Every structure is written in structure tokens, then in C-alpha cells.
């Protein structure tokens, strides 16, 4: 599934589910300056992610601003099948939240 927040794919594999996601986020380090004005660009990054499989938390992550812009995340749920729901939700340091949801194929 794909929307303004990014893309997520969940594919049944080896009795489990391989999940790959590309999240849309600037992941600003806070050390860059606006070209031209030299105005510092405020630090803006995803802090916490929560990955769920059919509503159960399977992976939780803490990120800093050292994670790349438009972050990629891949992991493998041990047991699952096509039709299972997979969700990744996150919050950033400015209080914004985002979510990507899909169904395993």
C-alpha cells in the first residue's frame, strides 16, 4: 500500500511475513542550514515506531536523526499468512504521527 506517508509491502514468505516499508519523512539532523538564507533547519525526525501484526506489537524502534531521510525499514514476522494485517505507526519529535497499513499477500 502506498500513500502520502510512504509505502509498505508485506509478503508471505517461509511461513512468516517479510515486511518492507519506505516512510516519507525529512529526518532533519538540525545541523543543516537553508541554502541562501543560512537559516538553521530545525531538527525534525521520527522518534518512535511501533510495528503490529494483526494488532499485536511485534517490533518497536527508537530512532534518532542519524536515520536517513525517507527511512527504510525491513523486518520479518516469524509466523503469518496472506491476509494478515501489518501496521507501522510512528511519532516524530514535533508531535506529528503517521501510519502505514497493509495486508500481507
Amino acid at each position: 500500500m502506498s500513500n502520502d506517508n510512504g509505502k509498505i509491502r508485506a509478503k508471505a514468505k517461509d511461513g512468516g511475513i517479510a515486511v518492507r516499508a519506505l516512510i516519507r519523512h525529512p529526518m532533519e539532523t538540525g545541523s543543516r542550514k537553508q541554502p541562501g538564507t543560512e537559516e538553521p533547519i530545525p531538527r525534525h525526525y521520527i522518534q518512535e515506531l511501533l510495528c503490529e501484526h494483526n494488532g499485536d506489537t511485534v517490533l518497536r524502534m527508537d530512532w534518532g536523526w542519524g536515520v536517513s531521510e525517507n527511512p527504510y525499514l525491513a523486518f520479518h514476522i516469524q509466523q503469518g499468512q496472506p491476509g494478515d494485517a501489518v501496521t507501522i505507526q510512528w511519532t516524530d519529535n514535533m508531535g506529528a504521527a503517521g501510519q502505514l497499513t497493509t495486508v500481507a499477500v
Partner: protein
Amino acid sequence: MQRRRLLQTGITAAPFAALGLTGIMPARRVAATAADSWPDAAFHAETLDAAMTALYGERSAIESDRITLTAPDIAENGRVVPVEIATDLPNVRTMTVLSDGNPFPLLARAHVMPAVRPRVSIRVKLGQSANLVALVETDDALYRSTRPVKVTAGGCGG
């Protein structure tokens, strides 16, 4: 506070979970312990040792060949360096990746539930050639593995 609550989960449900918060939260999203929430001090630490201490206290990490830290030997673009940590160590709780060459070494930490493989891939920024450090915390101990990455164009600043 709303935001925190959303992300807190029940992995360390047992010892300190109550803390007066369970009554207002669904059972599954039990309050996390202090050590379990986003580690502010560790992310702001400016040396590898300070970041590791902020995360894991004075525990020393045992060098382990059971951690596979995958990254390119030479990264042409330090802004996007693919990194994967995997391990066959049992009872993994957390997996952490740091770089000794970044102004703020801690990059990311994963809390791994038994329902996922202890194997996570992300992409990180490396400001310069550096050693990537992977830490794997199990129920019993803390393990580490290190891998040098040469960066030809840095990923911090301009």
C-alpha cells in the same frame, strides 16, 4: 503525553508496569519503564561510550561472532547507508546500531519481540568513515560486533 501512550507497549509488562497508569490504558499497552521509553540522553550523547553507558549502564559488551552486521565496505553516499543487524543469539531483547564517527553516535535501537526474527534493516547517515557498532542485548548479556565503513561523501551537514 498522548503521543507516548500511543507507542508504549507491554514488553516489560511485569515489574514496574502498574505505576498507576494501567487503569487508564488498554491492557496491552501497559506503561513502559523509564529504560524502555525513547532514550533521550543516549541519543544526545556525543561519544560512543557515553551513548552505550546511557543505554546499558556499565555493562561491558562481549564481542560476538553470532551478530551479523551487514553494511557496504565503501559507502559512496554517506546520507544513505544500508545497515542490517541480525543474530542467532537466543532471547534477544534489543538490538542497537551506533557509529563512532557521527557527532551523535546512537542511530537506532530496536525492541524485538519473539514474534519477529532478530534481524532488522534500516538506512543510516554516516558523516565520515567510521566503525559501525551493533549491540545485541539478550536476557543474559550484552554482545557487540563492529564493522568499518569507508565513506566517500559524508551524510551530515550541508
